[in-house]
């Protein structure tokens, strides 16, 4: 008997090879004027105010809508970052703060137009801000942190002037207006699509835009890609000039290794969410530009539930703080790419300044940890669980193994729990996890803001469930403290309480590693931790 011919199989292989050999078509003319940004996440709504909207949606809205004001930028150790203290006009040509700090007056630019050509008026601004504090959307909770709570606070003075009244001189009122949510919507268009059940047109604005921003939506495929094209009339960035790129493609590529390949091959221009190991190897090759900025408004920590035993005992918390293998974790999880929040020296045992997050004088010291355990009455140790969510696995998994190993040395037996993201947030919300790692971020990183939101009250963001009346009182007081020296003093007190109570253990501020083609310029680390497409240009 003879063999059956191999022909069918080999012809398949031949066809496959043939298909692959075909040359890629060239798009040279448009390519240089196009920014192709790849990301592991995706845009799910065109209005960032919709509950459930992703960070990519936040970033997109920065380009499709304008706000009254915007953050300036500054250099932090040679890298551009957003500047919380420098607030410039975006739709506002100028603004005044009254001497008592209770009135903010914004004068709108005369030349500002919505993308449909109609002028931006104070009426539109009022409608948009009213929407932000009235409609059941995300902006409500954000603006609350700047004492902006009611539509009565926004008053139209004339078609180009709007006045905002505050109940108290709140430092965060103005910065709040530069955040993602209080975007200015073309109220005439939006009202056409409002319904009695949905007077603020939230359903319509989820899938359509009606703004004055630098870019217009060209196509929007939720979960896949968004293509935006330049609004030629937009001049809010630099006078008489629109944004640099004619088109921006925001594309979802879930696999991090693929994103790294794309940017290395030059098919993608910019990516900010690569794995630390890939960033390191790309940086070593030196072909691409890598800008690593410590995310100075975010913190990764190990948290303990201060209400459930044994972590209700401060000495147990201190024992854990001195038993964590900081250096090893920093290397294994982040490849050292970040700013450590451990290993400080406080010469007189007091905080060096009143800024949160602060570098704490903790380091791995197992003898000290054992002493604390003894003082807590648990010299033999105990058993507990250490949880992290699947979404953070690439950094948290190596960390968890090291935590387990190190805590075992002082007798604390740790079971590692890897939880799906939704399950993790549920358990955190219900305060059920004894020991876990999480990250937090504040758009407006001021000391009192961090302490009020993340260390007070029986609410979800109080991860450690700390209930310390003194801390809560100082943080609340600091919020409206006009005197800078006193504010600093309050900050020092808060940091001292944090260190002595050790409700949770700040570890580090991970880097935002932006990897881009060497021709890309102007990248700035923004408060929303995504790319503002208006910042970047090509050489």
């Amino acid at each position: 008997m003879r063999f059956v011919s191999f022909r069918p199989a080999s012809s398949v292989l031949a066809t496959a090879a043939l298909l692959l050999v075909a040359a890629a078509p060239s798009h040279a003319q448009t390519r240089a004027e196009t920014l192709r940004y790849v990301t592991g996440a995706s845009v799910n709504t065109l209005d960032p105010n919709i509950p459930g909207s992703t960070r990519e949606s936040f970033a997109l809205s920065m380009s499709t809508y304008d706000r009254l004001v915007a953050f300036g930028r500054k250099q932090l150790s040679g890298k551009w970052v957003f500047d919380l203290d420098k607030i410039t006009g975006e739709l506002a040509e100028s603004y005044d703060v009254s001497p008592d700090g209770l009135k903010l007056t914004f004068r709108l630019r005369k030349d500002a137009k919505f993308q449909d050509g109609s002028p931006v008026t104070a009426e539109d601004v009022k409608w948009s801000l009213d929407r932000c504090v009235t409609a059941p959307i995300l902006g409500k909770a954000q603006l609350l942190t700047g004492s902006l709570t009611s539509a009565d606070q926004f008053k139209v003075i004339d078609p180009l002037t709007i006045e905002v009244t505050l109940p108290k001189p709140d430092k965060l009122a103005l910065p709040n207006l530069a955040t993602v949510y209080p975007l200015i919507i073309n109220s005439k268009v939006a009202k056409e699509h409002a319904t009695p059940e949905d007077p603020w047109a939230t359903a319509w604005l989820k899938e359509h835009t009606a703004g004055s921003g630098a870019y217009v939506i060209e196509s929007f495929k939720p979960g896949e890609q968004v293509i935006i094209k330049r609004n030629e009339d937009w001049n809010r960035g630099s006078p008489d000039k629109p944004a640099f790129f004619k088109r921006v493609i925001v594309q979802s590529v879930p696999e991090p290794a693929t994103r790294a390949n794309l940017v290395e091959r030059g098919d993608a221009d910019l990516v900010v969410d690569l794995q630390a190991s890939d960033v390191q190897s790309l940086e070593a090759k030196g072909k691409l530009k890598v800008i690593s900025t410590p995310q100075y408004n975010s913190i990764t920590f190990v948290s303990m539930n201060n209400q459930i035993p044994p972590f209700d005992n401060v000495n147990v918390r201190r024992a854990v703080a001195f038993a964590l293998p900081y250096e090893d974790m920093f290397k294994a999880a982040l490849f050292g790419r970040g700013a450590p929040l451990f290993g400080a020296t406080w010469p007189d045992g007091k905080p060096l300044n009143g800024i949160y997050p602060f570098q704490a004088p903790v380091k791995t010291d197992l003898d000290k940890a054992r002493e604390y355990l003894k003082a807590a009455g648990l010299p033999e140790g105990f058993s507990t669980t250490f949880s992290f969510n699947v979404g953070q696995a690439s950094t948290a998994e190596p960390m968890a193994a090291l935590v387990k190993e190190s805590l075992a040395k002082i007798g604390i037996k740790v079971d590692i729990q890897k939880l799906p993201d939704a399950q993790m947030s549920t358990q955190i919300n219900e305060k059920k996890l004894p020991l876990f790692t999480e990250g937090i971020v504040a758009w407006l990183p001021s000391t009192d803001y961090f302490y009020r939101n993340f260390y007070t009250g029986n609410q979800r963001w109080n991860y450690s469930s700390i209930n310390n009346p003194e801390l809560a009182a100082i943080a609340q007081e600091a919020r409206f403290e006009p005197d800078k020296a006193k504010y600093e003093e309050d900050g020092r007190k808060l940091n001292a309480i944090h260190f002595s109570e050790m409700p949770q253990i700040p570890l580090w501020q991970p880097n935002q590693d932006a990897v881009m083609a060497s021709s890309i310029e102007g990248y700035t680390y923004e408060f929303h931790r995504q790319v503002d497409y208006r910042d970047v240009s090509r050489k």
Partner: protein
Amino acid sequence: MMTGLGATVARAGRRLLSSLPALFGVLVFTFLLMRVLPGDPAVFFASGPNAGKEEIEQIRKQMGLDKSVPEQLVFYLSDIGRGNLGRSMMTGQPVLKDLRERLPASLELTFTALLIALLAAVPLGVVAALKPGSLVDHGVRLFCALGVCVPTFVSGLLLIYVFYYLLGLAPDPTGRIDVFTSLPPQRTGFLSVDFLLAGDIEGWWAACKQLILPALSMALFVIAPLARITRASMLVSLGSDFVRTARSVGLSWQKVVVTYALRNAILPVITIAGIVFSTMLGANVLVEKVFSWPGVASYALDALLSSDYAPVQGFVLLMAGIFVLVNLVVDVCYGIADPRVSIG
């Protein structure tokens, strides 16, 4: 002949009807399963900075989770009855729209992969069966073992590394079509077909190039079961009386092997191909992730991770429906391969 066809259609219809209770069971079961799973979608989706209790309650209300489970089930069933699968929190779109857009992508990929797998596996199986124990047989076995041991995402990443990163032959592995290519008018949802219908050969070529690597990495994984089954049933068939008879009367080897042996050996291959197809469609999530393929499986996985109920339920229902259809098609194929079999 007409009556035969009519009877087949009628029987197929009856089969479909009788699968309705099973589909209903799947529907209710998935619904309950999603509610039993730990993880509160409202908490997850309210995770913007500052989202507090109020936001969580609001999302809960929006998703209808503030009602009791039986009430939710009744609402859900009546929605399904009206053809509404709910809305995904994740993409912000109606689930039906998401699935309708993504299913063709998954189907196109799976069909292509299955075609490649069959074209490779059947000849491989036949060759191995013709010379059992020979070097060729062992070679095929090794190839199959390799294909099955290497997980699809590893072979996918390897293919990308070699053909895209090193050689630069393949286009960037980001979805169904190069971002700079304009799409053809949507007719079937299968890009390779739509481009041909639109007469855009260049576009068709671009779509095929995107398709080939993911399809190949999926095919590699399923060649093994198909080739092994082909080999086993070919061995039985080659050792049977009718093949001995055919050989003894001096028929050409082609007639013996292809017409008599293979035709009789193909039934179990069809069965396995049907099962493999259904599994691939649901389980190709890794390939979809690696190649950024906008298919239904990665959609369902993302939804599952974030406890987004509606898409997961919609996905399971869709898969159950497809499974029913595939089984039906397999049965019809039986009839064609072996006229003695009739679906009943």
